[in-house]
């Protein structure tokens, strides 16, 4: 649904601090996918996703939504932003209304939604992030916990009923419990509601559990794009790019170096257990 063709983006062009944030990036994200974009700070991943909803305009190259150039004159920017929901890092910092309901309503209201339809959307969005609309709706967003505020911010995008949801570091700065909750909600939005999801992160851990496809960025370029497992099969390279590897993956790698034939692409504790037990069994058979 979103396709980038040789997108290059240069910040502060014509000044001494000119920097190329994106260099010749081509990729496609298809409807119904759940994709992770990973890269260290400054690798260009946040700049890239801002091209998806037209907040940034490529210096060179084109971005298409359903084969229509999003910067073509006839494209309505609001409709574009409605379809491609983008949530920035620490999205709770964008809340401003007096009540949670009013804040969630901000997006759809800008799109001209009103009355019962607006009410339905606000309630639906809050429910989808696990917040009871009757309990949380009338409260001030500033009186909530960090995790709750972040879920309100996500609801604010969901209420616009986008086809794609892009989340930049959705779990940053949260405690493990809230982190897990947010990831569960994101997974459910994909599995149950068929939303296309793009997760942007510098940490593999969060992305590894959710995404089937990974795009790895380094200094403005896409350096890997493929199934999560194939990307993880080269962890030494990922570590060199400054990305946090899941500890289980790291462990499997080290064991291989020590001669135990553990699959290198394990991501979770359960997978790690199965892979190590299998490797030990193989070794034991070989020894006997």
């Amino acid at each position, binding site marked *: 649904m979103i396709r980038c063709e040789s997108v290059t983006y240069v910040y502060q062009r014509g000044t001494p601090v000119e920097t190329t944030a994106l260099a010749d990036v081509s990729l496609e994200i298809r409807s119904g996918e759940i994709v992770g974009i990973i890269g260290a700070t400054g690798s260009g991943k946040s700049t890239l996703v801002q091209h998806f909803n037209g907040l940034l305009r490529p210096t060179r190259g084109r971005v298409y939504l359903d084969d229509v150039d999003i910067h073509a004159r006839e494209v309505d920017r609001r409709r574009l932003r409605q379809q491609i929901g983008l949530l920035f890092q620490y999205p709770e910092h964008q809340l401003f209304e007096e009540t949670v309901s009013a804040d969630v309503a901000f997006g759809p209201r800008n799109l001209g939604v009103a009355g019962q339809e607006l009410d339905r959307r606000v309630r639906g969005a809050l429910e989808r992030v696990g917040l009871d609309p009757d309990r949380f709706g009338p409260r001030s967003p500033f009186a909530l916990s*960090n995790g709750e505020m972040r879920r309100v911010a996500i609801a604010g995008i969901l209420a616009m009923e986008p086809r794609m949801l892009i989340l930049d570091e959705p779990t940053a700065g949260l405690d493990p419990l809230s982190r897990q909750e947010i990831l569960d909600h994101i997974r459910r939005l994909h599995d149950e509601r068929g939303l296309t999801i793009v997760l942007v992160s510098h940490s593999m851990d969060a992305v590894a559990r959710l995404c089937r496809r990974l795009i790895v960025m380094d200094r403005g370029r896409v350096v890997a794009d493929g199934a999560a497992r194939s990307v993880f099969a080269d962890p030494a390279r990922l570590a060199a790019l400054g990305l946090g590897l899941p500890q289980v993956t790291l462990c499997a790698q080290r064991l291989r170096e020590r001669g135990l034939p553990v699959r290198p692409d394990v991501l979770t504790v359960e997978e790690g257990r199965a892979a190590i037990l299998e490797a030990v069994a193989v070794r034991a058979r070989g*020894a006997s």
Partner: protein
Amino acid sequence: MYRAGTPDAVPALRGVDLDVSPGECVALIGGNGSGKSTLAKHLNALLTPTSGAVRVDGIDTRDADRVWDVRQRVGMIFENPDDQLVAAIVEEDVAFGCENLGLPPAEIRARVDAALRLVGLEHLRRRPPHLLSGGQKQRVAIAGVLAMRPRCLVLDEATAMLDPRGQAEVMETALRLCRHEGLALVLITHAMEEAALADRVVVLADGRVALAGPPAEVFSRAEPLARLRIEPPPIARLARLLAASGLPLPPGILTVEQLVEALSPLGAAP
């Protein structure tokens, strides 16, 4: 170094007892609202206990005349790297604490240079902080505290907002200061991999100490941890699953290195 017997009237903390010695690293963990940050603020007299006492090098934090002695001895690093640097140039920020102590200029200069060297940032001394990475900003904050010659460093979720590289930088710096310079280190953290590196883990819940002990011991207590909704570090869980499946593993494995070490004999060429 500390003795904290803390309030019962205040719901935030109730009867916490905790000692931290020089060169020791203690991790404080617990969910939101468990009282971790409240406790941290008691350590350098940003808060004082309603009942009970906090002592730093024998100084009672309620002693109003010695508040500055307490704060000089206990350096705090906070969560948001952007909200704790005061000056528009790195070395001036590092000097800020010493200037507040009223030290002579030459002495401040020497301490600032030494502190920047200890955190490995001497090459950035003339930079404005907003051009640094998150990890570098936190190291500047650590240098600012170090220049005051503290006895103890408190990291209050100081890595929560950083990327993996920044997290590693800050942890490496803090642990080195603890191990080699003899600073007491209090780590308040949500990251169990970090807590696993401490000498001692203290789990707070509802303002009380729910569990305490060496990390290997605390993280092996699956049931109370599950009740407190704390998930042990992934490697601890993996090791426990493997041991349950019959692999000969010693108890108390927490880190990748330990697990690899314990499993390597199985990988040795037959």
